[in-house]
């Protein structure tokens, strides 16, 4: 067997694949952030908390209502989307005229409240959520045994990411959204209800986070704090990718998952910092990020 720096190539392939799984989460979350940022010019700090909420909804659906994974994969994003509508209508919409900083601070406050609520009801050690029947078991790929569920995560999230990308880049709705980011006033002058479009965009963005949350529930422990560490990494992903393009956020998310995976093999101690190191380097070379546009 061939080695690379003392690690068998086959093991390396396995690690790359696992990196891709994590990258799928980064991609989905940073995609949601990018969509929201594009339309609302708000960095949605609450993204991590809404992701957590998605996972919790999956668990609650099963626990209290007996709704299975597949139902919740649909329902949780809907519920969180409605919550997003409320957040946008009741709070965010008053902040657009102000400095963007206030949006960041408000959503930070929302994060604290949501985490606090879930923590006070469910504690922190977390709830257990089983992998759905259909996806249990693992497949032997030769170089590694890949649990079917992880394969599903990659497939599902890449599908969703590409779907969102296609929706935004290829449809009338997407065209309206893109136009709205370019020149919201003119779009409104054409009779399109831009405020409502903004609300729905926010709802859609956070629904993506909830979807990621449901996907994560069977892999991770469902707990109140599951989003708060992730969100900062996703921020770094966003800074590295540059807030410009939808495709950029997807690619950067996947790419960083893989880089992180490789770090876990060669220098595991640095695996939690590598994203930030990459960020520092990218900022030095390209202050606007890899796919971002200057100013």
């Amino acid at each position, binding site marked *: 067997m061939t080695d690379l720096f003392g690690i068998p190539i086959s*093991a390396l392939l*396995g*690690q790359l694949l*696992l*990196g891709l*799984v*994590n990258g799928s989460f980064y991609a989905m979350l940073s995609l949601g952030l990018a969509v929201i940022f594009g339309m609302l010019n708000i960095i949605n700090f609450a993204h991590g908390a809404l992701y957590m909420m998605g996972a919790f909804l999956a668990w609650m659906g099963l626990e209290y209502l007996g709704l299975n994974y597949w139902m919740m994969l649909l329902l949780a994003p809907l519920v969180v989307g409605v919550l997003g509508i409320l957040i946008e209508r009741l709070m965010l919409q008053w902040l657009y005229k102000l400095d963007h900083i206030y949006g960041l601070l408000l959503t930070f406050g929302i994060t604290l409240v949501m985490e606090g609520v879930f*923590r*006070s009801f469910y*504690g*922190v*050690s*977390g*709830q*257990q959520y089983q*992998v759905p029947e259909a996806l249990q078991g*693992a497949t032997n790929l030769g170089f*590694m*045994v890949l*649990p079917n*569920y*992880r394969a599903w995560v990659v497939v599902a999230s890449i599908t969703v990411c590409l779907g969102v990308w296609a929706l935004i880049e290829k449809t009338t709705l997407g065209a309206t959204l893109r136009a709205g980011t370019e020149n919201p006033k003119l779009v409104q002058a054409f009779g399109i209800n831009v405020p409502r479009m903004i609300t729905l965009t926010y709802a859609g963005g956070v629904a993506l986070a909830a979807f990621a949350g449901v996907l994560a529930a069977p*892999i*991770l*422990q469902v*707990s109140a*704090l*599951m989003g708060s*560490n*992730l969100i900062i990494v996703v921020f770094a992903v966003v800074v590295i990718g540059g807030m410009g393009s939808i495709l950029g956020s997807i690619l950067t998310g996947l790419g960083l998952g893989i880089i992180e*995976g490789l770090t*876990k*093999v060669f220098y*595991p*101690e640095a*695996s*939690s910092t590598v994203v930030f190191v990459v960020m520092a380097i990218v900022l030095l070379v390209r202050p606007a990020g890899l796919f971002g546009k200057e100013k």
Partner: protein
Amino acid sequence: QISGDTVKIGFITDMSSVYADIDGAGGVEAIKMAIADMKGMAGGKKIELIFADHQNKADVAASKAREWIDTQGVDMLIGGTNSGANLAMAKIAAEKKRPFMVIGAGSARLTNEDCTPYTIHYAYDTVALANGTGSAVTKGGGKSWFFLTADYAFGASLQSDTATVVGKTGGQVLGSVKHPLNANDFSSFLLQAQGSKAQVLGLANAGGDTINAIKAANEFGITKTMKLAGLLMFINDIHSLGLKTTEGMYLTDSWYWNQSPEAREWSRRFFEKMKRMPSSLQAADYSAAMHYLKAVDAIKTDDADKVIGKMKDTPINDFYVKGSIRKEDGRGIHDMFLLQVKSPKESTEPWDYFKVVTRIPGDDAFTKLADSKCPLVKK
């Protein structure tokens, strides 16, 4: 002569964060049970309990402790989970001369490098856990080990303590991988562990990390080829993971609710109130409070030095443990248990999770006086 005419116990623990289930509100309830069992009086005076959440922040814990002693006249402190918080509290208790009974924190430093005349490390420590799990599992045939270690001081000491024991009992450490604290994904580390072909996977981490690692180990089928040994786990972790996931795992603890009739009896009372079975820490909270209150009751004073003397002189003998507190360094010495998680089929009732595999005598479990790094121990 009881200061302030009340015997005031201060309990500081994690009530809202990762360790809240293991101790937290249940710990408060356990101490209240002890007070109730004393009829609310010790040495002829009223007993009072105040408690606070340190949110796993050492600074909050220490400030609370200091403030309580300075302004509330607290006579004794019970420290819940989190070693950092407890080390900080130990400093304050020693400075202010108050008995400090550590229950939930595992760091062996509390009775080694950082020992004080006022610290009593009552329930367990990482050395005991390492000795229990490390030696018992190795003796039981798990000769080759691989460690999955949280990358910070505590994880490193758990690993090195256990590795030493494994080596002594004829086992072999094949390797280890460090993971960041609160890692969100363990699959990559587990793949590396699997690559080592070791028989035992030692989990030198805690809380959420342990839980997530076990989940992933199941998912990747690693539990089929390796035995899992949790180096710092409690019954609540098993409860939240479920037996299906944890079946066959080894862990060491100071107590299990189903280990004896008296333990069962107390646990039922606890269950009435909390709707869950007690962890070893909650039982220890009760036991420690009781031990202290009985000492105060016996000598009719809450003077710190005298009460500590009395506590160290009196053997502990209750449903929790039979043992004593070592005079020199304040280490509580009692038996520990190597437990194995039952399979779902073996479990006959809720919370029936463990088989007791071995009883480890206290003298073998805890650091020997000869090996102690406590400056108070004269060699």
